[in-house]
Each structure stands twice: as C-alpha cells, then as structure tokens.
C-alpha cells in the first residue's frame, strides 16, 4: 500500500470529517450532486454527460448511415435530414469531444498536480451546468426545426443561443482548470515535472479559452443579425459560413490533445520506465495546440490550390507560396503528434530485464492516439484541391476519426483512474475487449467513407453511384459496433461503480503509477491528499519504489 505521511492530528481531523460525511442524509448527498465543490464530482458529471452524448450521437450517426444505404431515395422525412446532419456536426464536437476532454481535465488534473481542490470550484461546476443547459437548448432547437438549415426562425435563434451558452460554460471550466495548474501545484512540482496528461490538459484548456470567445463573439453578431436584420450574415444558412470552423478540423485537433497526451501518460507506467526527453514530448503536445490555433485563424490559406499537372518544375516561386502555408498549417500538428509518438516509442523500446504491466488503458490510449493520427493525415489529404475530396463525405470521416479516437482516449482515462474516482477498477478482460471493439468500430465507421469520398460521394445523404453502397453499409456496421461498444462500456462502468463485490476493489496503486495521485487512497478523499506532498522529480512514486527496493545498511524502512 502506498500513502502520504500525515501528522496524527490531520489524520484524526480527516477521519472525523469522513465520519460526518458518511452520516449525512440522502438529501444532503443529493444536493451535493448539484452543488459539489469536489472536482472529482464535477469531472464525473462531465464524463457521464459526455458518454450519454456519445450514445445519442452514435444513434444520429446510425440514422444518417441507414439513410445512405440507398443513395437514390430518401427514407426519412426530407426536413429531418438537415437537422440530423446538424446534430451530427454539433453533437460530435460539443456533446462528445469537448465534454469528455474537459472531464479528463477536471477529474484528474488537481490530483496529478497535488492540489487539494480545483481553483474556483463553483465556477467550474457552473460551467458544467451552463454547458448542459446549452446542450439541452440546442437539442430542443434542432428537434423543433432549428439549426443551420432550419425553417423555424425562433428555433434558429434558440439554436444560436444554445451554442453560445455551451461555449461560455466550457470556457468557465477551462479557466478554472488552467488556474489550478498554474497556481496550486505541490511544492517542488515545476512545470517540467507535471505529468503529460496535465500538460495536455493545460494546452487544451488554454486553447478553449482562446477559441471559444471568438466563437461566442461571432455568434452574438449572428444572433442579433438573424433576429433583427438578416442582411449581413446570410440568415441561418450563413451560420456555418461564419462559425462552421469550430465543428471541423483543425479546431478538433485542439480538442483531441488530451487523448494524444494519454499515450505518453500510460506508456511509462506500462513499461516501468521514466519518460525520456520530456521537453520534446511537451513541445510536441504544445505544437499541436499552437499549429491548430494558427490554422483556425488562417483557414483560407490551408488548402493547396493545385489542380492538374502542378508537379512540374515551372513557376517554382508561386508553388512555394502555395506550399509553405499548406505545410505549416497541416504539417505542424502532424509533427507534434509524431514527436509524442517518438517519445512513446523510446519508452517502449525493450531493454534487458524490462517488465511490462499491461493494463486496459494502454490499448485505449494507443488506439485513441492512432485514430486521431489517421484523422490528421486525412485532413492533410483533404486540403489538397487536386485530391478532389472537398465537398464529399471525406470530411465527415475525418471528423469522426478524430472524435471517436478522442473517445477511446477518454475511455482509457476512465479505466486508468477509476480507482481514484470510485475505488474500484473495471474488469480488465472486458475493458481490453472493448478497446479492440472501439478501434474496429472507428475504422469501420470511417475508413469506408474515406474511400467513398475518394470515389466522389458527396457530403449529405444522396448520391447517384450504386457502387458506393457497399462503403456505406460498412460505415453503418462501424457506427452500430460503436453503439454496442459505448453501451457496453457504460454498463461495465456502472457495474464497477455500483458493484457490491469486493473483487473489483483495488489498492491505492494498482498500476504501479509514477505520479502523485497514486500516493493517496483509492478512492481519493474529498480533499485529495491528507497532506500535500513535496515533489523532487517528475516520477515521485517511482522514486519511492526504487528507494524502497534499494538495499539498505541495517534495517528495512
């Protein structure tokens, strides 16, 4: 067992507090669910909502995929299809990707930096409720013919308001997370000693703080113009022209950074090594964020406007002018994730006597990273005009790759840190099976759409070429498998969460973790640590185990 040294008075005080907590009435506990200042409770809310959002959006994806089975005929109501496409675009980013990425930040970052609480906890929780309220408003608007192609003017207004409220909520929580990382790290924990997950959370949340206000500012114009003037922004059909950038690449790269960071969080634990070249790994994660931010602001320069025989050696200066921004905005995020991969491969390089402790999280993290990486590669191809995939289903496939990849990363985080959240671990065998099912579902749901996009299947649900049907059938199978995977994961989590058997109960450090959250009890107490520990390296728990294993003169400690 691993624990933190504590003075007897503090231990007694905490024990008394926990007795008090146990004796609170159900009403107090019910109220605590809505007003808690415990970051783990807030993080659980984000996780639960993100998983519910995933289940809902997978159903939307299945409906769209069913509609695509016969490209020449429309099965559903014609007016429903634009709402479904809107729900898919908005939902994948705002109901799945963002809440799950935020959940990973809120639930685990304070534990990892050695903080007793998240800074501004009420702001963080208010942010969650705002996001949830905005999501409900958006769903109501879409169901009642709102959305970017909706026919009900008031509902279109409501749709814009819903998006804005969600963005403000997420920004509030992001402010709380970044302040926590910057101001409440344990003594000795410099920024170079924070964990990869914490670093990726900071890059992601800073990105949210920089990007969401731009989104909200434009939405404010869109709302007032749509409600009162309808001349300057193209009505509801202009919504995507002005704010569509947040529902697609490269903005989604920014939101998928926590999933990328999971790879280098889990690999050192799996292979029992320290992370080499931490600066390179941090630079890689930051590069994804910076490049994505830069690309968001310069979307008109990202494409490579080459068509026809552009590979000749003529007009080199003009070609260089086209190529440089394309490579900068599309290549830099890839270089960032490749740097992360290089560090991970360095960790995984076998050495004599290396012991591998395989956990389900490593599969989720690896597959999640891989899917995000393939999505980035796809986006690089999408930006080449000569590839001829713009305006096809290729873009949707790229978005789904990124989002499903990030979902796998978030599932990995839940599997890994479940002991700290509720004191039990998920069934290892079942979780590993779900990781494989998740990656198979992602590939099946998206790769056929890459092929269909290359074969010129237009975005939307209609197409003329019956040869494309097979790719759409495969995509439907993939979304169906993802629905089963998501549902099974939720059930697995609930079984662990509500389980009364002691079989799943774990010690404080079931994975031989390296960071300080594994030094507190499982589940972590409300204040995380009885006493805040002093940090002397980036892997304090590894240091402790090494010191304990080293031969001592005289007696064992």
């Amino acid at each position: 067992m691993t624990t933190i040294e504590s003075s007897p008075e503090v231990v007694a005080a905490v024990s008394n507090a926990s007795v008090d907590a146990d004796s609170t009435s159900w009403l107090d506990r019910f109220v605590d669910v809505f007003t808690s200042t415990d970051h783990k409770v807030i993080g659980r809310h984000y996780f639960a909502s993100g998983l519910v959002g995933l289940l809902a959006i997978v159903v939307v994806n299945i409906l769209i995929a069913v509609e695509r089975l016969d490209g020449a005929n429309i099965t559903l109501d014609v007016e429903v299809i634009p709402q479904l496409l809107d729900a898919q675009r908005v939902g994948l980013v705002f109901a799945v990707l963002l809440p799950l990425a935020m959940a990973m930040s809120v639930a685990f970052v304070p534990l990892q930096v050695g903080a007793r609480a998240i800074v501004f906890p009420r702001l963080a929780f208010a942010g969650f409720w705002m996001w949830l309220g905005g999501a409900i408003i958006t769903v109501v608007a879409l169901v009642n013919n709102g959305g970017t192609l909706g026919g009900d003017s008031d509902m279109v207004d409501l749709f814009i308001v819903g998006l804005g409220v969600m963005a403000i909520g997420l920004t509030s929580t992001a402010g709380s997370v970044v302040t926590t990382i910057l101001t409440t790290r344990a003594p000795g924990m410099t920024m170079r000693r924070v964990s990869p997950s914490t670093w990726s959370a900071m890059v992601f949340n800073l990105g949210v703080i920089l990007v969401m206000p731009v989104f909200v500012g434009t939405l404010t114009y869109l709302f007032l113009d749509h409600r009162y003037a309808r001349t300057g922004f193209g009505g509801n059909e202009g919504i995507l022209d002005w704010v569509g950038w947040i529902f697609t690449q490269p903005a989604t790269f920014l939101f998928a950074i926590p999933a990328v960071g999971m790879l280098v969080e889990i690999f050192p634990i799996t292979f029992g090594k320290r992370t080499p070249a931490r600066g390179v790994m941090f630079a890689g994660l930051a590069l994804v964020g910076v490049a994505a931010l830069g690309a968001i602001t310069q979307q008109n320069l990202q494409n490579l406007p080459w068509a026809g025989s552009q590979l000749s050696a003529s007009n080199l200066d003009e070609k260089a002018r086209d190529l440089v921004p394309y490579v900068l905005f599309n290549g830099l995020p890839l270089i960032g994730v490749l740097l992360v991969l290089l560090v991970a491969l360095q960790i995984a390089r076998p050495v004599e006597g290396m012991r591998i402790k395989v956990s389900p999280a490593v599969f989720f993290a690896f597959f999640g990273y891989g899917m995000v990486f393939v999505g980035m590669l796809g986006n690089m191809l999408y930006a080449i005009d000569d590839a001829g995939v713009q305006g096809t289903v290729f873009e949707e496939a790229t978005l789904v790759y990124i989002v499903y990849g990030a979902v796998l990363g978030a599932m990995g985080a839940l599997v890994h840190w479940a002991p700290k959240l509720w004191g039990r671990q998920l069934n290892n065998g079942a979780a590993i099976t779900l990781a494989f099912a998740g990656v198979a579902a992602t590939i099946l749901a998206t790769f056929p759409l890459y092929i269909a996009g290359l074969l010129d299947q237009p975005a939307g649900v209609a197409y003329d070429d019956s040869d494309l049907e097979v790719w759409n059938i495969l995509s439907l199978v993939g979304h169906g498998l993802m629905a089963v995977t998501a549902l099974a994961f939720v059930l697995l989590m609930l079984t662990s969460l509500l389980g009364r058997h002691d079989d799943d109960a774990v010690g404080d450090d079931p994975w031989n973790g390296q960071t300080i959250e594994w030094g507190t009890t499982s589940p972590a107490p409300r204040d995380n640590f009885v006493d805040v520990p002093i940090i002397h390296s980036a892997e304090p728990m590894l240091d402790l185990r090494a010191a304990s294993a080293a031969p001592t003169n005289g007696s064992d400690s």
Partner: protein
Amino acid sequence: MYALPAAAPPAPQRQVLVGVALAVMAAVMMTGSMLAVWALQRRDAIDFQGSWLPDGVTIPEVPTNVMLLAFVGICVFGQWAVYSAKNDDRGHTILALGCTFLVGLLVINAQAYVYTQMNLGIADGTYAAMFYAITGFFMVLMIIGLLFTTVAAFRFIGGRSADRELLTAHALYWYAMSAIYAGIWFLVYVTK
C-alpha cells in the same frame, strides 16, 4: 508502505490574479474577433454600397472621446488603489476605488448618451445589429468591472486590507478594459 514526505500547506499563489488574467484574455479575444468581423463587414459594405454608416445616422464624437479620456482616469485610480494598499493606506485605497467606480459610471452614462443621440434601432440593418452587439458586450464588461470594484471596496471597508492581490487583479481588469475600448473607439467611432 511507501510514503511521500508531507510539505507544509502551500500558500495560495495569486489565484485571483491568474484567474482574472485568463478572463481578460478571453474578453480580449472576444472583442478582437468582433472588431475583426466588424472590419470585414465594413469593407464589404463600402465595396458594394459605398458607405457603412447608415444614412442619417451621426455618431456623437464628444462623449465617445470623453469615454476614452475617462479610461485614463480609471487606470490611474486603479493603480492608485494598488499603491495605497501596498502602503497600508486604507483610506486612500477606498477613495481610489470609489473614484474608479464613479468614473466607470461616467463611461456607462456616456455610452447611454451615445445610444440616445444616435437614435438607431437595433432592427435597422446589419450596422445597427453589429453596433449594439459590440457596444452592448462592452457595457456588460463595464458592469462586471463595476461589480468587481464594489466587491474590492467593500472588502477593504470590511477590514481585509491585506488582500492586495485582489487590487492588482482589479487594476489589470481595468487596464484591459481600456485597451478594449481603445480598439472600439478607433474602429467603431473614429474610422466609422
């Protein structure tokens, strides 16, 4: 049993200041994006219609310039509060915060005067909708600033005079508001 050595409880590290800095960053990003879209729409309107300001609408320049000058005062008073607090001068701290509040009210009053003098309805076209969006958002920031000043003043009146970080954050907020208004003043009121 493995045990990490326990540290003394760490002192709070400028959480309010960092939080306000992040909030200010978000406000600057939001205003910056709104001004960028304003400039884009203005350029398109001038290209297609020859003018951006609707016919018959005149921007009263005196109150808009007075607002810019008022922000110089707000920054001075905000910094005066920080200086006084550092010198344990509670009286002058409260006086400086009071002056900040009054000049802030002056700015809101001047903006209300601009609204009444322009006689522009929010439904009078894209210019009107965008004008009310950007200046309305700025008024929201002003009201938040006044609430911030009020809270800071009452904390000092209540005797929490060691809370200097709050005043530094308060001054930072008003510096940022000054920069934001300078952008609005130049793009909305000067170049029109």
